[in-house]
């Protein structure tokens, strides 16, 4: 009994883990299918676009601007040391388009919308609202989740574009307006060094992150009742939401590395 206990625990935990991963995988497939299957309802998608996309606009503008400014600040001094401050434009643009734009946008959206999706769905699961939908013969995945999937996958690239552009303006403000780098050099350096592949990488990353965020957040909320701790009550919802935020943030960084490694 005492000898076998740790092994049993280990087995239980691994089984639970693989079960959760398998469930989430099937869930992703079901969500994608029901997202693509007609009928399409525009109104709920627009509402979710507004919530996930439009409402994230301000925070993206703010983070984008300051990220660009800090890149300008950090980039200027080392470049000036070698007399190559003309490269500032391309340094800012490349780091934003390839890395910081998609990743920071994703992290912001996780904090804003991912957590809200998980908590919202989790509360609906806890208070039997999802069961109520099932009993009314309304498919909760089609009704509740499919619009969120569409909206998240569409929003992330668009928000990333905004982040990149405002970041480049931030770098411009610090580099050109503050340190007096030549305006033409700033943009010419950017123009000659940014390749299509860089932009492509940014787009692929933001699409993948958009899917990751909505997938993890909705799976955690939807399967709240199957959590190891039971996911009961307010505490269950808050713990699961925290889990969703942590897991999606880490997944975004892991996938960022993988996509970079594949596309570079």
């Amino acid at each position: 009994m005492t000898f076998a206990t740790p092994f049993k625990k280990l087995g239980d935990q691994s089984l639970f883990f693989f079960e959760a991963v398998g469930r989430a995988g099937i869930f992703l497939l079901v969500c994608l299918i029901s997202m693509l299957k007609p009928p399409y309802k525009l109104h709920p998608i627009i509402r979710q676009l507004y919530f996930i996309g439009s409402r994230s606009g301000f925070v993206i503008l703010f983070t984008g601007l300051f990220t660009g400014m800090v890149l300008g600040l950090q980039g200027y001094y080392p470049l000036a040391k070698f007399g190559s401050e003309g490269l500032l434009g391309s340094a800012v643009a490349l780091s934003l388009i390839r890395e910081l734009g998609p990743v920071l946008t994703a992290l912001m959206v996780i904090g804003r919308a991912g957590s809200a999706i998980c908590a919202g769905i989790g509360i609906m699961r806890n208070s039997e609202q999802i069961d109520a939908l099932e009993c009314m013969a309304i498919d909760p995945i089609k009704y509740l989740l499919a619009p969120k999937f569409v909206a998240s996958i569409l929003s992330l690239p668009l928000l990333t574009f905004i982040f990149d552009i405002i970041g480049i303006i931030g770098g411009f403000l610090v580099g050109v307006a503050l340190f007096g780098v030549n305006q033409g050099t700033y943009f010419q350096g950017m123009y000659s060094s940014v390749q299509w592949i860089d932009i492509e990488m940014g787009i692929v990353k933001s699409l993948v992150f958009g899917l990751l965020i909505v997938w993890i957040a909705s799976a955690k909320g939807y399967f709240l009742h199957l959590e190891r701790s039971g996911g009961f009550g307010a505490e269950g919802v808050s713990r699961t939401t925290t889990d969703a935020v942590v897991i999606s943030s880490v997944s975004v960084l892991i996938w960022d590395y993988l996509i970079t490694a594949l596309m570079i």
Partner: protein
Amino acid sequence: MSSAKDQLAIEMVNVEKTFGQQRVLKGINLPVAKGETTVIVGGSGQGKSVILKHMLGLMKPSSGEVRVFGRDLARMKKQELYEVRKDYGVLFQNVALFDSMTVFDNVALPLRERTKKSQAEIARIVEEKLALMALEGAAGKYPAQISGGMQKRVGLARALALEPKIVFFDEPTTGLDVHKSNEIYRLFHATQQQLKYTAVIVSHDVPKIFKLADSVALMAGGEIQGCMSPEDFQRSDNPLIRQFVEVTMGPIYTNDKEEAVSRETV
């Protein structure tokens, strides 16, 4: 025989359900006749709600069959299950209203999602249902802004929005005072007269619920102890039923045997 089967809306046959080590349902056999009211009574934690969840297809039995209009729910695909549920209306124990929607939208949701009716027609039906439940003033309010009794009535309005063939009530009067409970029972009676639906009620509001029931089943020890008319139920000599009746109602009714014994001793 087949005609008797045709008269059944739902039939549970040898349904067993285990959660881990725990056997909650140990072979349930329960017929629910069309157009009648079947009441499932029993103490808390006996698995009454689990039976209901099996009938709704929210849980699948470990073994046995749950036949709805002759078709086994457990062997259905998701799409077929949705087809069956189109005939269902459910009033949940905690009502399960959509708390971020107004009362109006709650009742309108099944109509919007499941029918192709125009907005004007939906508005007309919703207002009619709300009027039936005496909820005209509450249409614009959110569930958190209305009382528990009103929430139950909204739940009932939502359950009846699509004129279902079978309506399930999970403890419809729990947490309500006597007046509010009577109001719910009155509405239930009135709507059933009007819509002629089959009703399955899980309740422990004994003896009041007996007045509404066509048949009563006691859930105890993971099994159904008899499914019979309220009169027979109260006179049954099944020890578990007798115990339940005496605990909940006091020894008001005695059966013929006991009366004979008491007459002899006098």
